[in-house]
């Protein structure tokens, strides 16, 4: 029943011995970016593998504390015609004053800083004045017309597609730093761009919002303030040892402060080697349309579209 392959020869490499085993381990390693086939020294990890882990941990620790370059992100968005077409991006930040507060106080990361309530930044939008008290329930689609009075410079939100747009449901895209500014810097704008391509036929899109020291739920307050029917938050997922630039996309229907996570849908692991922008955008768009039909997002909304595409492992960053 078993084929004993003899004692492992080399100091380095996989746990198997002999020819057959060598090729087995080659195939195992090729099949996944996980740290498989590390080999053993006694029952422990080889020194080389341990030192790799320690280095990765050191680097990840440093990464968590890197600040988001908001200005660069804004400029990048403006350089992209699809996003520029939505109007000048809104720049907001949460109530967490620094990284240390952000890490210890997620509640603060979920709420807009009083100084940058969107109602004030962008007074014509939605329930404007009462932006921060968006807990009252609003019927979907009811806010479509509210934003016409916008006085904010460069706002194409209400006039871009004026005629056709007015009858479409509103949707806002938010790019939030989350726990990986690296993810947002690398994938925020191209992913938003892919989303706009997928969504613009069916939704009236609000200008892009860029949120600092933010959690997923900050989209609720932003969405309510903008008076949109749905919000999609693109956020930096917490960095792992091998992957530190993964983006998450969270859809919330009828956003308002107090929404639960079960009322959202999530598409995770957006990055080269994970989910592609195209597939992620298509999935989020399907979910967004599905939520409009169903009248809600969350656990009762299932994406039964195509399954997640598997990328070629060659696209993976080195583990």
């Amino acid at each position: 029943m078993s084929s004993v392959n003899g004692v492992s020869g080399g100091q380095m490499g996989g746990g198997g011995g002999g020819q057959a085993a060598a090729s087995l381990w080659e195939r195992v390693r090729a099949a996944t970016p996980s740290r498989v086939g590390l080999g053993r020294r006694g029952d422990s990890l080889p020194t080389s593998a341990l030192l790799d882990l320690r280095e990765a941990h050191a680097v990840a620790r440093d990464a968590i504390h890197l600040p988001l370059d908001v200005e660069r992100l804004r400029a990048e968005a403006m350089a992209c015609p699809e996003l520029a077409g939505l109007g000048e991006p809104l720049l907001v930040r949460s109530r967490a004053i620094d990284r240390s507060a952000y890490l210890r106080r997620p509640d603060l990361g979920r709420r807009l800083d009083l100084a940058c309530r969107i109602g004030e930044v962008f007074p014509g939008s939605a329930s404007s004045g009462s932006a921060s008290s968006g807990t009252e329930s609003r019927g979907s689609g009811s806010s479509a017309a509210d934003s016409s009075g916008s006085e904010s410079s460069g706002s194409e939100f209400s006039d871009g597609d004026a005629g056709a747009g007015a009858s479409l449901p509103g949707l806002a895209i938010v790019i939030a730093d989350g726990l990986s500014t690296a993810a947002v810097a690398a994938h925020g704008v191209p992913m938003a761009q892919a989303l706009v391509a997928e969504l613009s036929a069916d939704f009236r899109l609000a200008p892009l919002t860029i949120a600092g020291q933010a959690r997923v739920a900050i989209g609720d307050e932003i969405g309510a303030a903008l008076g949109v029917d749905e919000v999609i938050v693109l956020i930096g997922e917490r960095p792992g040892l091998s992957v530190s630039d993964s983006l998450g996309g969270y859809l919330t229907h009828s956003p308002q402060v107090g929404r639960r996570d079960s009322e959202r849908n999530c598409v995770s692991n957006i990055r080269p080697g994970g989910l592609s922008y195209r597939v992620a955008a298509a999935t989020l768009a399907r979910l967004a349309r599905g939520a409009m039909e169903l009248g809600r997002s969350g656990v009762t909304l299932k994406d039964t579209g195509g399954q997640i595409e598997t990328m070629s492992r060659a696209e993976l960053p080195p583990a």
Partner: protein
Amino acid sequence: MRYSGLAGGHRYSFDSLAVLMGAATPARSGDELAGCAAASAAERAAAQRALAEVPLGRFLDEDVIDRDTDDVTRLILAGHDPKAFEPVSTMSVGQFRDWLLSVSARPDGAAVLAALKWGLTPEMVAAVSKLMTVGDMIAVSSAIDVVTSFRSTVGLPGTLATRLQPNDPTDDPAGVAAVCIDGLLMGSGDAVVGVNPASDNPRTVHQLLDLLDEIRTGAQIPTQTCVLTHVTTTIDLIEAGAPVDLVFQSIAGTQAANEGFGVTIEMLREAEQAAHELHRGTVGDNVMYFETGQGSALSADAHHGVGGVPVDQQTLEARAYGLAREFSPLILNTVVGFIGPEYLYDGRQIIRAGIEDNFCGRLLGVPMGVDVCYTNHAEADADDMSTLLTLLVAARTGYVICVPGTDDIMLGYQSLSFHDVLTARRVAGLRPAPEFDAWLSQVGLLDESGRVRESVTPASLSALAARSLAA
């Protein structure tokens, strides 16, 4: 009711049992975030004195989470067995601690503690843990037997089982299979081979279930498999004929938090029923798998108790075990360092919480495992994990989670490596679950001393590799 206690010459008072429980909890960031932590070390000491005086019976009268608005509380109270409670019914929390420690040192400790299971509520158990040191909790936990089974048996004395967690960022079947081969060759997977899917698309989940079932049956491995998707998806897939061994669900200690997870008690009952009817277990029929973790209620803003006050995360966690045991799970693990530093700030807090969770769960009769883990945004490292694992071995936890090289590339955190468990088993002289152990030995993976060999590939696993991995 109002409670009070002295410390450092001052008297501190606490407005309710919920408030008292919070103030008596050893320091952790989540309770500071929630606003229920003691304001000073002295206040904490006073709260512990006050808590030590509270009669256990009081927990049946005064709710921490209101029974009128919370179905977990109602379930717990309905499940309480006054006869089992008898032996300790007149004790205070402090006396209960003394009694637990005395009983645990007796040769008949395991039997006495097992009989107590349905006499205790999660709140009683959480309360007594707050009066215990790590050493106390290990002493009691290690005297308790909790044994469950499906195709393998988890929790027997002298064993330490593992969940092999072959997560893949794109749910790629070859990626999942590769990690399974890696883990199986290191003796991992006896509690469950369980994937967190990156997608919650039912088709993807179904494919993963098929893949895991194929691996298991192909290599004739006496274990169970699981795809950790939402319970509603699993129910649908059972109906669709997918090979479901265990039903997974994340649960928490309040109705509101479970609503946040999109789950109700009814759903869990339905799922348990559906899985039972498949009759897929061989040596036993425990079909549920739960995950919990201190902080999950707070993270869903669903941690408020009687009077609207915030409730400490450790008490809420124990309540999740109270919910879980209604469904006779095969396994439950706390994901102790997973959620992040806002709940457990550093290695010290993660370690204490892991030991508390294991203690509370075992005392309530839950087949506890622990995801010994940390995230990169916490003040913790691999040494803290070695440490917690060693403590848990002493405290006889049922199983731990393992991934390749400590690195879960999909969930973005570090758990134990397959290697860590090999080391822990050898140092402590523990074996895998017996059915799995027999399999390992049968396929030639064990040497004379019971150690997993370094350079053997059983034919069935080579065949699996040939089938499922690209050339």
